[in-house]
């Protein structure tokens, strides 16, 4: 089991805070923390979705968001097992460590794992290197996902997407209705007042449900740390063989990655901030080998930005002047 460190509940003793622990303690007792609230909301969403659908499934992409989602599913239905299978759409180009991690987790937790690969794509030998990322993603991911949902007749699928990821995501509902062709109609979205989710749908329609909608990337890392959630080791910095392509650091994960004449993979200290198909996923150079290191890195990226602007703000001049000076 994942237990490691136990999550705090409101009433239970917390580790003493290093500074002015008195006032801090008092505050903590009186309320839930931001992570507590996010966790409770996600669990609520999962239970609603399961109660309102006939055949739910969790899309499991093996990344950090999926790991958090899975952890929340375990909590939501405890002591029962999550009443749905996990579905991984395998493009056959995932990092090897991801696949090993996936199989190990499913085995350890005793969960039902479905793996689907688009058979037409396989037959046509579609891949990111031979066909480019667009075709590859469409055939091996998008089409493959639709095939899998239809094949098993799933009417609700959990995904780990967050609203802070991208502008149009910020407008998506927690319960997102898809028509029979899996299309999203942003103008027909259902209002969700008081987190009252409407899970009703007509024949052929299905739902995508996003329990992590209100989490930010930082929340994800802080929660992984707090709950001691296992994640794929590729998120932690280590020396790995890479080649540089169009400014991206690509891990040489297997022999399918063709090397240019004279090109030699170099060993560099790298890690990944997101995980996908290895030829399409760039690494960052980093020495962050632990979660605190990663959290610090995430924060520092922000601090340096703040720094730059703090200097600008010293003068009373507002945006106007910065613009005149060609700030952007």
């Amino acid at each position, binding site marked *: 089991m994942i237990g490691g460190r136990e999550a705090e509940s409101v009433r239970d003793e917390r580790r003493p805070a290093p500074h002015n622990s008195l006032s801090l303690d008092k505050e903590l007792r009186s309320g839930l923390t931001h992570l507590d609230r996010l966790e409770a909301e996600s669990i609520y969403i999962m239970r609603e979705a399961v109660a309102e659908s006939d055949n739910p499934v969790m899309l499991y992409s093996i990344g950090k968001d999926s790991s958090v989602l899975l952890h929340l599913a375990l909590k939501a239905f405890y002591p*029962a097992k999550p009443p749905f299978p996990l579905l991984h759409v395998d493009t056959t180009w995932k990092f090897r460590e991801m696949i090993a991690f996936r199989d190990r987790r499913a085995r350890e937790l005793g969960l039902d794992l479905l793996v689907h690969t688009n058979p037409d794509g396989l037959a046509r030998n579609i891949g990111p290197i031979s066909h480019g990322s667009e075709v590859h993603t469409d055939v091996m991911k998008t089409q493959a996902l639709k095939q899998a949902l239809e094949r098993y007749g799933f009417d609700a699928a959990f995904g780990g997407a967050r609203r802070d990821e991208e502008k149009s995501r910020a407008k998506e509902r927690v319960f997102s209705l898809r028509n029979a062709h899996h299309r999203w109609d942003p103008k027909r979205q259902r209002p969700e007042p008081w987190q009252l989710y409407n899970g009703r*749908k007509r024949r052929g329609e299905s739902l995508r449900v996003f329990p992590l909608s209100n989490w930010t990337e930082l929340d994800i890392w802080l929660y992984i740390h707090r709950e001691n959630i296992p994640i794929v*080791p590729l998120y932690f910095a280590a020396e790995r063989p890479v080649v540089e392509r169009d400014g991206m650091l690509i891990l040489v994960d297997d022999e399918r990655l063709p090397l240019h004449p004279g090109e030699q993979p170099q060993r560099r200290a790298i890690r990944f901030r997101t995980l996908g198909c290895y030829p399409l996923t760039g690494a960052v150079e980093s020495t962050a080998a632990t979660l605190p290191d990663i959290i610090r890195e995430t924060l520092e990226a922000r601090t340096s930005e703040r720094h730059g602007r703090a200097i600008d703000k010293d003068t009373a001049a507002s945006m106007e002047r910065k613009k005149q000076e060609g700030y952007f």
Partner: protein
Amino acid sequence: MLVHSEPESFDLEDYLAAHERKSLLRFITCGSVDDGKSTLIGRLLFESKRLFDDQLAALERDSRKHGTQGGSIDFALLVDGLASEREQGITIDVAYRFFSTDRRTFIVADTPGHEQYTRNMATGASTADVAILLIDARKGLTRQTRRHALLVSMLGIRHVALAINKMDLVEWSEEQFDQIAAEFRAFATNLGFDQITAIPLAALHGDNVVEPSSQAAWYDGPTLLSYLEIVEVEQKADTEPFRMPVQWVNRPNADFRGFAGFVTSGRVRSGERVRILPSGLETSVAQIVTMDRELNEAVAGQSVTLTLSDEVDISRGDVIASVERQVQVSDRIEARLFWMATEHLKEGDQFLLKLGAAAVPARVVRVHHRIDLGLLESVPVSSLGANDVGHVVLALDQPVAFDRYTESRRTGGFILIDRESFDTVAIGLVDGAVVEQTVSPRVIRNNAPWAWIKWTGEQKRRSAVKAMSWRVIGSVATVGVAVVLTQDIRLAAAIGATEVVTKLVLYYGHERLWARIRYGLSVATGQHGGGPQSSSAN
């Protein structure tokens, strides 16, 4: 498996402690199209350093392509995420954004100003603590400002920041500012806001958004961001009575039967007495189960699983509540509705009502009146059009447990779902149960005592039960007497059967007939509102 090493030099623990101490503020921004809402939010995100380099680069590119600022940064583009929004230059859908300062974490519901999309604004308002009402200083209060203020008030927001924007276009006129603020205060006297804070702004240039403006020496109030950081919103959820709608019955094996739900208000301890509604059964909490550990107490905002000390029949949609301050239970409710579909809402329309975790078929028995959003006056109507707010009576197929919305948002708010399209067509707020039998208000207006009224009061099954309770006793007696007198069981049974059938039918028919005749009924029973209001004060 991966074992994370414990934190070392970087003071992560310090950081986490500080992070956990931050409180969360949910707010919405509303205003008419072009008041500068997107510009304001973009500005807030930008100034609170929530933009990364790649986002900025994309913003610059977009500004050149679609921007309204002649190639320089157009902050509005940061937030208009849908292609159709960028094409039309309006915000259609509510967007949620996240930023934080050293004091607070913020979730902003950025809601559209366009009247057609007011429903999306209402969604954002339903969970917000604070509303920022944006006003163009040149235009002053508009019909849309009034609509938004009413909806915001109706949905229970008690703190309003009146952001009077584009002050640069009125030469930062203090007089103009004071006049708009005063007009709003006068308008809002009956809307029940605890606090209205007016702030002069120029979102486009950043004045008074994060940094105080040098333009308005006469203004000594907070900037918008510092207002958001300091505004005190009561977190009253955990002093309220305990409520937990049951979402899911958890039965992994024969030995465990748990009831999973989100505590919407109050707190509960293991061992405490609770009541299950609508059944009304009383029992006590045996365990509060979570995956991490068993808790002694669960509070509002937590998702838990309760086991109970008695075998009681509970299903999804039931509410577990404190024994003292009880939930109301009824199959007839008075409610305010915000109607969102294009077709009109009429008496007799049928829906699915979802409240808490319960979903029941519901019928609109009556449409009382509509609230005119400009004048804040009630207008008698019998149907509601798109974006109307009105008072209705709903009859439910089964009783449900609820609170009045003014007492509890999460157990007093509901949605209506169309039974064919399954769209969410209305947002509703429970005002109370319909306690006494009421007569259609139409009768009151129509003074003819013999008018054939639309039957709304007694239900058929009640008439049937009344007929039986009255007739069956008599018929049993008749059979008894007939047996004694005739000494013939078959004859006596025939007499009895004839009497039961004819009298039951006649009595029932008679009841149904009189249920439609107003003669002799007291007009006072037709007054709506008085009963439910006074009966549920606790």
